[in-house]
């Protein structure tokens, strides 16, 4: 059985990977403390008061840009798979779930906006907000499949790309005043909030499209 030997080899490798990772983890003392002082020195110029948001969207904004690119790329891969089946809703509408979702979905959307806004001074931000929004849209899709409104494909595609597009645009604008994606003080606050708002809508559309497009696309 070749399959069986392959599996046992896989388990063996996974076990040794686990052992190695545990060994590395026990040997980490603490993070380099010079990073901490550097971070706190730069915090007043970052435009936000929460450290994670400052690192994600100001100091290491290029990483976040590429992350958004990866998410968009995975959606393009899903589009390219061409599932040639017609999605038939599994659930049937009934009063209980309809009423429940009618109350729940506005709350989820409101909470997503709150998380987005509060990301500037506490934990939160665009990624968590977009995940919440996408979850809400998926619940809506599952419970009310027939009355679910899907915008035109062209508008949707524009929405998918808008997050990355706006991010790159901001990078280009900041190129005139310094280097790529480097902004400071008062303008940084505006840039970060606007990037996060666009990212939330765009990533929310992408993440919900993972679910909806993968099961709803019909052959043209």
């Amino acid at each position, binding site marked *: 059985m070749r399959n069986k030997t392959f599996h046992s080899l896989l388990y063996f490798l996974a076990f040794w990977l686990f052992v190695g990772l545990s060994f590395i983890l026990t040997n980490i003392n603490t993070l380099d403390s010079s990073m901490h002082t550097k971070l706190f020195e730069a915090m007043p110029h970052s435009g936000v008061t929460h450290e994670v948001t400052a690192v994600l969207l100001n100091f290491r904004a290029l990483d976040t840009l590429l992350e958004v690119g990866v998410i968009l790329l995975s959606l393009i891969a899903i589009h390219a798979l061409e599932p040639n089946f017609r999605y038939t809703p599994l659930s049937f509408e009934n009063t209980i779930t309809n009423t429940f979702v009618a109350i729940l979905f506005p709350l989820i959307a409101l909470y997503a906006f709150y998380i987005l806004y509060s990301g500037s001074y506490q934990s939160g931000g665009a990624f*968590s907000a977009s995940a*919440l929004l996408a979850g809400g849209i*998926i619940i809506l899709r599952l419970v009310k499949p027939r009355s679910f409104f899907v915008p035109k494909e062209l508008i949707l595609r524009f929405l998918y790309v808008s997050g990355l597009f706006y991010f790159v645009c901001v990078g280009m604008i900041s190129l005139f005043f310094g280097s790529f994606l480097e902004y400071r003080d008062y303008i940084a606050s505006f840039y970060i909030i606007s990037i996060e708002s666009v990212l939330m809508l765009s990533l929310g559309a992408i993440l919900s499209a993972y679910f909806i497009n993968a099961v709803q696309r019909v052959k043209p």
Partner: protein
Amino acid sequence: MLLIDTLLLVLLLWLGFKITFTKDHFNAIIHFIVFGMILALAWVRLGAFDLALAEIALGAGITGALLLDTITFLKKIGREDA
């Protein structure tokens, strides 16, 4: 607090083991969703609240829904082994 941390760690390892070795795929998916939620609790214990939120919404919610939909579709087209 140490008790809670140990409990979370043991639970995570056990759930990971169950996900890998359960023969029934539906069972494995349910374990995966629970794994995501416990992992979110672990993130909260580590002080990373934004990660915990993203883990709940993405790891447990969206991935779980996608996997459940996939297994329903596979059963519908007659791949009972899937």
